[in-house]
């Protein structure tokens, strides 16, 4: 006798299977886990870098857990409670509340400064230590430090391991000075060009302030050229640049504007010693190099960069490629990876899950295991920022981005001035 499967039975079975498969089984109660809220913009306009951050943090947590978890907490495993801000400040706050109500005892995030600022309130209000992995706006930590200093808040729960807008500027001016010195030139007509959005203004402001403070031998032109992002055409801006007769162009771009700016500079044949960016996306990513090809050759830019001299960095970068199906281990994944490793380091020293103990251990941090390029161990100053989180000057050589400055981390010798075409 054959058993007939009727349409209805099949339908029922399918629905039942889907229902079972669709609902995750409750996680088996483990001995003890330490929950961390990991919040990034994994959907919405900044989904690409946000996802890179999330994967970086997950890889680090996996590595920590495989190595036996947090030994000082009896081998407690790290359990990540993932959140998505969609780059909306209100979701930064809501997601932080959500993960804290699910038991998160630390927060990590969140890439864009608006959502990060919204999370700061939750951290301070609920006494949850918050390590900012990426976000450059200075006030995020500075505001909290001030309110603690003025006695409005008892303790600072917010720390950041990422260059701030002003430190980006200081480092860029320093690298410019050193690179020009190395090349034996003193440009008198350096032209700053920037994309006029949150990021571009933050960067250009930091760069100009640092330039004024340092008064280096090379000189910036008074004229500064900016454009709204995304631009539809930059030929007028480049004509203006040409008229200013610059000897170095310092562009702060986004990927879309870099794709217009660099070919236009070549088309209008600006005769410059080189293109040296004070720090921006658009000048080094694999996709950009594939599109812009020779226009990016010899371009220099100051960006947070993984320290590929460290064999551990190369190993993690290889794992990252495998895990993401070919994506590059970069600023975003790298800083989030380091942040999670820092959390483990802090917990090992805190030997407790008490927020005050964690903060105390955070303040005493001297971590040297970072995969990114630092100017020294990870430490936190009185504002809660790591002064050793610095960018690296990279250059596109043979269509690959490589670290060229500071000298001790250079993987290749820098080429400046660029060869005449």
């Amino acid at each position, binding site marked *: 006798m054959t058993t007939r499967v009727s349409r209805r039975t099949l339908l029922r079975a399918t629905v039942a299977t889907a229902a079972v498969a669709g609902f*995750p089984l409750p996680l088996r109660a483990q001995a003890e886990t330490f929950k961390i809220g990991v919040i990034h913009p*994994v*959907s*919405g306009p900044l*989904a690409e870098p946000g*996802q890179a951050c999330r994967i970086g943090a997950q890889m680090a947590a996996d590595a920590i857990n495989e190595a036996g978890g947090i030994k000082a907490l009896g081998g407690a495993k790290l359990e990540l409670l*993932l*959140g*998505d801000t*969609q780059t*909306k*400040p*209100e*979701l*930064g*706050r*809501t997601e932080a*509340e*959500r993960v*804290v*109500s*699910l038991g998160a005892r630390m927060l990590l995030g969140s890439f864009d*400064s*608006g959502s990060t*600022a*919204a999370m*700061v*309130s939750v951290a*301070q*209000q*609920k006494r949850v230590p918050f390590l900012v992995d990426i976000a450059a*706006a200075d*006030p*995020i930590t500075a*505001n*909290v430090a*001030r*309110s603690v200093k003025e006695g*409005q*808040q008892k303790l600072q729960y917010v720390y950041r391991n990422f260059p701030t*807008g002003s430190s980006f500027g200081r480092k860029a001016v320093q690298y410019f000075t050193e690179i020009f010195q190395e090349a034996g030139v003193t440009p008198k007509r350096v032209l700053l060009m920037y994309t*006029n*959005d*949150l*990021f*571009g*203004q*933050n960067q250009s*402001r930091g760069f100009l302030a640092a330039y004024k403070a340092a008064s280096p031998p090379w000189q910036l032109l008074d004229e500064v050229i900016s454009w*709204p992002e995304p631009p539809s055409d930059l030929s007028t801006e480049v004509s203006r640049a040409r008229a200013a007769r610059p000897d170095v162009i310092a562009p702060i771009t986004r990927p879309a504007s870099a794709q217009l700016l660099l070919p236009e500079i070549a088309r209008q044949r600006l005769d410059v010693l080189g293109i040296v960016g004070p720090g921006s996306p658009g000048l080094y990513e694999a996709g950009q190099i594939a599109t812009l090809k020779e226009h990016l050759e010899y371009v220099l830019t100051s960006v947070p960069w993984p320290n590929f001299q460290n064999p551990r960095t190369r190993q993690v970068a290889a794992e990252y490629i495998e895990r993401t199906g070919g994506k590059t281990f970069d600023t975003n994944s790298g800083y989030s990876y380091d942040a999670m490793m820092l959390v483990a380091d802090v917990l090992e020293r805190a030997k407790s899950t008490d927020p005050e103990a964690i903060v105390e251990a955070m303040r005493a941090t001297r971590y040297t295991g970072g995969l990114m390029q630092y100017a020294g161990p990870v430490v936190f100053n009185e504002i809660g920022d790591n002064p050793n989180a610095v960018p690296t000057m990279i250059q596109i050589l043979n269509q690959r981005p490589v670290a060229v400055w500071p000298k001790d981390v250079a993987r290749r010798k820098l080429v400046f001035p660029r060869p005449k075409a």
Partner: protein
Amino acid sequence: MTWLALGGLAVLAVLPAVLGPYALSVFINILFYAYLGQAWNIVGGYAGQLSVGHAAFVGIGGYTAAVLAAETGLTPWVGMLAGGALAAVLGGVIGYLGFRFGLRGFYFVLLTVAFAEVCRIVASNWERVGGAVGLYITFTGDPRQMQFQDDRAWYYIALALTALATAIVWGMERRRFGIYLTAIREDETACEALGVPTFRHKLGAMVLSSFLTGLAGTFYAYRYSSLQPGAVFGIPLSVEIVIRPIVGGAGTLLGPIVGSFILTPLAELSRAWFGQGGWHGAHLIVYGVLLVAVVLFLPQGAVPVLGRLVRRAAP
């Protein structure tokens, strides 16, 4: 009906006692967007003048309070009113230009969007108000600076604002002003022929709506701790403001509230559900599909349908 409304209010008033911190945070968002939707409802729903630039008033309100607090130490509680007043002035200007020159339909939409964009660009380039980097509010926990150690305070502010706006709309519905607005929405030419001062009433609706929306700006600035031109003047926020009353029922008293009670939890639940499993962005698809479904199957919004169901159940 009045008893039902008061009952609802009473339930909302005692709700924080049973809500956990996350649920409380979701309810704050629900009420905040319900309030924004209700403020928009006056001009967009009742008067039928589709403004898709209401974010401009949120931004003006928030920036005014934050700048006053930073530069003169004025408490945001007063700054909030100043922000509302300035937003009302801008609303008056937009309304005057739009209604004086008879811009209707898409032309009025474009006018409102254009003003919001101009505000965004001005704020992005004005160093004094932080430029594109924006303004960051320090968390102090001091109620005089509209900062609270306990989130329930935010809940009650949002509830009070929503109740206030709903009471205003309720009163408006019963007065000549509200009836004129509805008449203007239904047939403006006929209204004019009957001697209804349409210009004055439309302008009044715009000013009232922008004042209330301006108050929300201060709430936004202090609750979410920062103001960035893209976030508070941008089109996405304007759309968030408009879709709640549309889903709930534009031009109905409870439409914006019902709309917010449908959309905000839906966005939350789908994000929490799909986000954890690594389905990035799936919640946006769910959200979008639901919006399309509402527009296709409930073009009048949820409230008229709910009203019919209630009447059928209890004739």
